[in-house]
């Protein structure tokens, strides 16, 4: 009896599952159908009647307030009706009247060359409108998308063809010094929010015809322009193909910043380490392009993505190549040291003071012990408190208005530096450790790398508090294994260290003199490996 019941129940369940599956399928089909009809509707070719077209466009755009329709009648008998459409704000209205409306109204009036109706469009296009960027349009879909991206549309009554004219309003933020990556010596320009400006900034640096730009629109709703930039002949074709393939897989409704792309196309999702480099500096992008990398520019953000990017790249700054090589090498070593300090300083302090006191020299131990007298928390809690306080201050400092930022830093210094120690909550040594960790984390030039290190630091601290140096060692081995397993667009993340590549050492941890940097990075660049053949500078020989 019971068995039968169970069996019956199971069958009912099975049936239900089937029903659900079928429902899902049906839903999917109807959805497909819906989208198909939508496509057909938009692919509709332009209706010859101007009035009908205006009506259609108004319907498509839902009588938007910023959609401007200007109807003019020109010709000797004023029998040619022309419609001018644009979105207010996206278009430079002054130039619309100067270069489109004025020629149409006045020059066109006297024109004798129009013999047939067919000539009309050619005349308008070729000899009336004084704008460089003018293209034919014959269907509503591309018409509407051009309209939305800031083009002026001209439709002539009686024709199933119109023009899109590029008169975008370039009244955007100027090119200014980047706020993130400042340099003492080097170009002081940074990308802006306009894609065209950004590509131009790169073009100005690389005047080669081989610099290629491929633009596509990503984002079902936002229709954001995304450009891939590379130098033909230098770029790693495999990586380029991969970038194209990954970009075409993106299906998202909105694309507001390059991080959307970064997260959607990166190799490893469960990793705190960034595998895509981003920068605000045109010179950095140019240098990467010259090494054979691919840049991805997104309209609306000054942050440009560069792929493939290696671990060591996040420790290199633009300035490394703008100052003497010996100093640059020193700075690079300093950055690596800071990487270890940021990652390990608090955890080593916790491990050594709670498990391995024998490692501390006696006078230092007594000094540390004296500071800890009366501190109520274990070293781990103490460190955690301080680190979290610091993170709060840091985050608070970023989000606060600039005027309040000062106040935050004063309160922070007083709270962390003095009061906490004097009140006996925190030992002075811990403040020093947290401070050096914080400062070291800002030495790393790439912000996204320093964030990820800061995050892993907490894991290390926890392990140090539970297992001492064994925990740190185990976590560090794990970290290295993880780093070696990551790839960025097929290139091993830890190269040129793992796999070790001797020629590439010249510009990774070391920065050799420029005349020694004769080849491009081998793993990034698969073709055209030679970069220069400059001899080393020699003084004129005595005669």
């Amino acid at each position, binding site marked *: 009896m019971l068995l039968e019941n169970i069996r019956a129940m199971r069958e009912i369940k099975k049936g239900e599952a089937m029903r659900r599956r079928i429902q899902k399928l049906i839903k999917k089909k109807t959805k497909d159908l819906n989208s198909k009809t939508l496509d057909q509707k938009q692919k509709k070719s332009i209706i010859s009647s101007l009035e009908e077209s205006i009506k259609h466009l108004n319907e498509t755009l839902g009588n938007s307030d910023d959609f401007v329709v200007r109807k003019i009648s020109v010709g000797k008998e004023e029998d040619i009706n022309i419609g001018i459409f644009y979105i207010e704000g996206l278009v430079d209205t002054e130039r619309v009247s100067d270069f489109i409306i004025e020629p149409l109204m006045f020059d066109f009036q006297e024109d004798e060359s129009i013999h047939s109706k067919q000539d009309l469009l050619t005349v308008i296009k070729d000899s009336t409108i004084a704008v460089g960027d003018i293209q034919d349009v014959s269907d509503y879909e591309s018409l509407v998308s051009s309209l939305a991206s800031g083009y002026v549309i001209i439709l002539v009554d009686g024709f199933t063809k119109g023009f899109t004219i590029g008169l975008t309003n370039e009244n955007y933020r100027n090119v200014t010094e980047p706020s993130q990556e400042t340099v003492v010596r080097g170009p002081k320009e940074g990308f802006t929010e306009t894609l065209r400006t950004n590509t131009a900034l790169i073009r100005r640096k690389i005047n080669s015809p081989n610099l290629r730009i491929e633009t596509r629109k990503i984002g079902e709703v936002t229709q954001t322009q995304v450009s891939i930039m590379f130098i033909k002949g230098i770029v790693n074709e495999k990586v380029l193909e991969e970038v194209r393939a990954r970009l075409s897989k993106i299906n998202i409704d909105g694309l507001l910043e390059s991080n959307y792309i970064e997260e959607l196309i990166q190799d490893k999702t469960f990793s705190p380490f960034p595998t895509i480099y981003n920068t605000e500096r045109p010179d950095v992008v140019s240098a990467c392009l010259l090494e054979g990398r691919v840049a991805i520019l997104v309209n609306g953000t000054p942050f440009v993505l560069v792929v493939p990017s290696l671990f060591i790249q996040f420790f290199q700054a633009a300035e490394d190549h703008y100052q003497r090589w010996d100093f640059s090498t020193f700075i690079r070593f300093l950055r690596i040291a800071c990487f270890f300090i940021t990652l390990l300083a608090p955890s080593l302090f916790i491990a050594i003071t709670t498990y391995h006191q024998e490692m501390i020299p006696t006078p230092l131990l007594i000094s540390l012990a004296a500071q800890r007298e009366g501190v109520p928390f274990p*070293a781990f809690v103490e460190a955690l408190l301080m680190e979290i306080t610091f993170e709060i201050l840091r985050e608070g400092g970023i989000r606060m208005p600039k005027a309040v930022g000062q106040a935050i830093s004063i309160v922070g210094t007083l709270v962390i530096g003095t009061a906490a120690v004097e009140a006996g909550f925190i030992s002075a040594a811990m403040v020093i450790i947290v401070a050096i960790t914080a400062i070291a984390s800002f030495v790393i030039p790439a912000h996204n790398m320093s964030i990820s290190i800061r995050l892993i630091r907490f894991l290390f601290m926890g392990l140090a508090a539970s297992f001492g140096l064994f925990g740190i060692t185990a976590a560090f081995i794990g970290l290295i294994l993880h780093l070696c397993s990551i790839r960025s667009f097929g290139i091993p993340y830890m190269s040129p260290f793992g796999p070790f590549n001797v020629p590439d050492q010249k510009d990774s941890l070391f920065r050799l003199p420029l005349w020694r940097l004769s080849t491009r990075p081998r793993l990034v660049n698969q073709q055209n490996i030679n970069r220069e053949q400059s001899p080393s500078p020699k003084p004129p020989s005595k005669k």
Partner: protein
Amino acid sequence: MTKKIIIFMIISILFLFITGCWNRRELNELAISVGEGIDKEEDLYKVSTQIVIPGQIESKTAGPSFGAPVELFTATEDTVFEGVREITRESPRKLYHSHLRVLVIGEALAREGISDVLDFVSRDHEFRTDFYIVIAKDTSAENVLSILTSIEKIPANNMISSLETSEEVWAPTTAVTLDELIKMLVTEGKNPVLTGIMIQGDPSIGGTTQNLEKIPPSTHLRYSEMAVFKKDKLVGWLDRDQSKGYNFIMDNINNTVTDVSCPKEGKFNFEIIQSKTNMEAKMEKNTPKVDIIIQSEGNVGEVKCNIDLSKQKTIEELEKRIEDNISNTVKETIKAVQEDFSVDIFGFGDAMHRSDTKAWNKLKEDWNETHFADLDVQVQADIKIRRLGKIGNSIIPEIKE
């Protein structure tokens, strides 16, 4: 896959909690023991330990702080280990021995044998092997550890600094660490020597901060001469010159001063700045023989007689006199040890063992008593005077005229 990762992460997070941090000790839970003393009272061991009070040492205000910088705990038990644990009945924190600087052994215990004590300190994981071992001469280790000192606030630090400095520049002491002591004990044909430490003044005042209030402290610690051991038992003491002679033979001289008589009357001092001793043992006509060659370089330190240092002949004469002086000191040291103790503290037997194992196997049975006591030791010194100091000839003769 994702499920596996999640399970792995949960397990690893749980690990953090189940370990319970079993041997975690915060810095303010440690009783940092810097000096430890062991005495024998009848059949029991008396363990005294000097604990640092960090707050007293790192006081932020300048000047002398009130209150002693260290605290002494003692316990008397059957074994050293029990004694160390018994101390927790007095001390609020468990003893931490990794920073032990000095182990003081009472003379009474040393005369009975120190090997029982050494087992615990070399076995326990907290003890390192780099602390010094000294013998409390004519007093107990407990008393030695209860004398306050002022330059180094921690008395144990004062003890090791003084030991190291005197060994380095004057050479009447020898700083022996635990591993060196054990090595000396287990080596055939060698017996250990440790430095003794004495209390000068009244020990009862030495333990109070009163001791720090006067310019000449009423009570202070002072290194005495070296203690001679026959294996692990103390048998007697060397005097200061013999201690230096011992260091000469052991090639343990870095820098010292010797006192040599001038050709006519008066004395002069020679400062050794570099010294190297070679010891060679061999069998000659079935009797063991040891050659000691001392090569030293140094400066003229102090001249109290009328000699013309600008002449090469004088320098050669002086070098000869220093050579005689040093080889005499060394010879006398050996002779005294042979006669008084009959214990091979110099490692002649070890040298013999290394150079002629077959002969050593026959000799080792009664090495100390017979062969060492009659051992023929040739001492040869080779001295070079390198510098005369800031002035040339002494000003003393000119004042007299």
